[in-house]
């Protein structure tokens, strides 16, 4: 099987909140230079899902494709160190900050360049923008079926089957290949990179494309535009309950909640 994993590089979401500020003039989040890059969390689960299929189905290769403006090779090679085989980078200064359906169109063009595939795996949403649009839109553009929020995945040469969490339980759904599946964290912890994997990843030379290498990227107007980005004001009017000891504070809290008829 040929599996493609889409991976996004993001500012480390674990960095302190003070490292992120609203750049209202440019309508985007400004990130302090001290914040390291990271692979978007859910994309590491998508990589894990790909490697589980690779473990189960012989003769499977896993290619990684990432669209961004400033890839840090050591970071974006993490899926390779986990066990993926090769890497395609689409680099453009404007695309990553734009409309998500346009990002999906660029990824679709890159994937057509890569060639035949059986399965595309993506994280359910990115850890910076949390939109959850790009992967599903990518499936629509490639005109393949999509199954989202997988918490378990099985694939053979013809079909992929997943479990997904829905409002009142778990659905099991399946699709003929080629198909796209988005992956959620309930899948289970992504594997660590092995020393052998890290060494192998170092030797991989990524294929790098710019917008000019992508077919069918029209100069049409975007589908959405960001018109404002700001930090909402927080009203910090918390009533701190104190006491001689933690136990006394707890007692005071219980009485205060009763006074307010909350318990």
């Amino acid at each position, binding site marked *: 099987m040929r599996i493609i994993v889409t991976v996004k590089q993001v500012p480390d979401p674990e960095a302190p*909140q003070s490292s*992120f500020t609203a750049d209202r003039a440019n*309508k985007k*989040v400004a990130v302090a230079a001290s914040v390291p890059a990271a692979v978007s969390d859910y994309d590491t689960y998508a990589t894990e899902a790909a490697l589980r299929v690779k473990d189960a189905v012989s003769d499977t290769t896993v290619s990684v494709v990432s669209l961004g403006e400033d890839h840090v090779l050591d970071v974006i090679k993490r899926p390779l160190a986990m066990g993926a085989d090769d890497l395609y980078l689409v680099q453009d200064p404007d695309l990553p900050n734009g*409309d998500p*359906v346009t990002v999906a169109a660029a990824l679709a063009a890159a994937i057509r360049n890569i060639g035949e595939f059986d399965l595309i795996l993506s994280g359910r*949403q990115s850890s*910076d923008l*949390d939109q*959850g*649009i*790009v992967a*599903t*839109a990518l*499936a*629509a553009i490639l005109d393949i*079926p*999509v199954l*989202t*929020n997988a918490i378990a995945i099985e694939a053979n040469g013809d079909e992929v089957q997943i479990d*997904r*969490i829905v*409002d*009142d*339980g*778990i*659905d*099991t759904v*399946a*699709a*003929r290949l080629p198909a796209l599946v988005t992956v959620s*964290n309930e899948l289970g912890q992504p594997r660590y990179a092995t020393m052998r994997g890290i060494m192998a990843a170092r030797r991989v030379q990524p294929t790098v494309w710019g917008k000019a290498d992508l077919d069918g990227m029209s100069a049409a107007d*975007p*589908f*959405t*535009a*960001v*018109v*404002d980005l*700001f*930090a*909402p004001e*927080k009203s910090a009017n918390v*009533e*701190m*309950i*104190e006491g001689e000891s*933690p*136990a*006394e*504070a*707890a*007692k005071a*809290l*219980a009485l*205060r*909640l009763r006074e*307010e008829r*909350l*318990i």
Partner: protein
Amino acid sequence: MAGESGILVIGETGVDGTLRSITNEMITAAQGLSADLGEPISAALIGSGVSARAQDVIDLGADTVYVVDGEQFTNYLNETYTPAVIAVAQQANPRIILIGHTPNGRDLGPYLAVRLQTGIASDTSGLNIVDGQLQAARSVAGGQFRQVVSFPKMPAIATVHMKAYDGAESQGGRSGQVVNVDAGLDASTVRSRFVKHEDAQVEGIRLEDASIVVTGGRGMGDKDGFDELYKLSTLLPAATVGATRAATDSGYCEQDLMIGITGRVVSPDLYFAIALSGASQHMAGCSGSKNIVAINRDPEANIFTESRFGVVGDYKQVLPALIEEVGKLMEG
């Protein structure tokens, strides 16, 4: 298409045909937009046996209900629901389409946007009309920032954050139009299939229905810590236990207790936030709570800025005393 008008709400129903609360919430959102635009509200109902619910949706506030009713729509599948919504959209020709930001709505929205060659904003929680067109506000970085999105093309599609709007209440006896729509589904083009559904094993009250939620985070440290949370919740009426993703990923409790941007969304009267920092990804699932009580040993924890009451202290010392005192109060 030209002449787009009105707001189309894509209703959500359970397999048994009952309307899900997100449908009521989207009707409320649509009513605000409808008043500003002076344009009508329509709704789509897709499923098996959903015709019987059309009047319910009219009573909630829809002027027209488009019904796609058939066995093949019993369970949600992207490949069957997308053509159904497209068939409705072609008849309704709306300016705005609202979809729930639910597991199925998130699955449907982007595919639909591509098919309709239009724009989509997801997980929106502030919908406004500016210069006659939709602008949708949504949280970024989990809630640290707000982003406002505009739509150069119509129809504008927005998925709506759960519990962002109060649900519309039924006004019995409203009159409206019911239109049956044929999705024109060609079964031979469907490449995916529904296999099975398993109901969640819910003991006691569902998180979404609880009046009081007792939630623990990473700082609980282990499963035993969660036992303490259960002790508190069993003392309180209509209360249940929730968790942050850090806690579920660490195996302190079951996965389906997760509250947050990718988990459940709750809005109880009282929310105990215990040993959790208040990361914006978590707050996205509980910020609709009427009263948040924070217990955390770090006085700088973000959760205190989001709370009405706060106690600084180690939960291992605070919680046993709280359980004892609450126990006394509930007895008396």
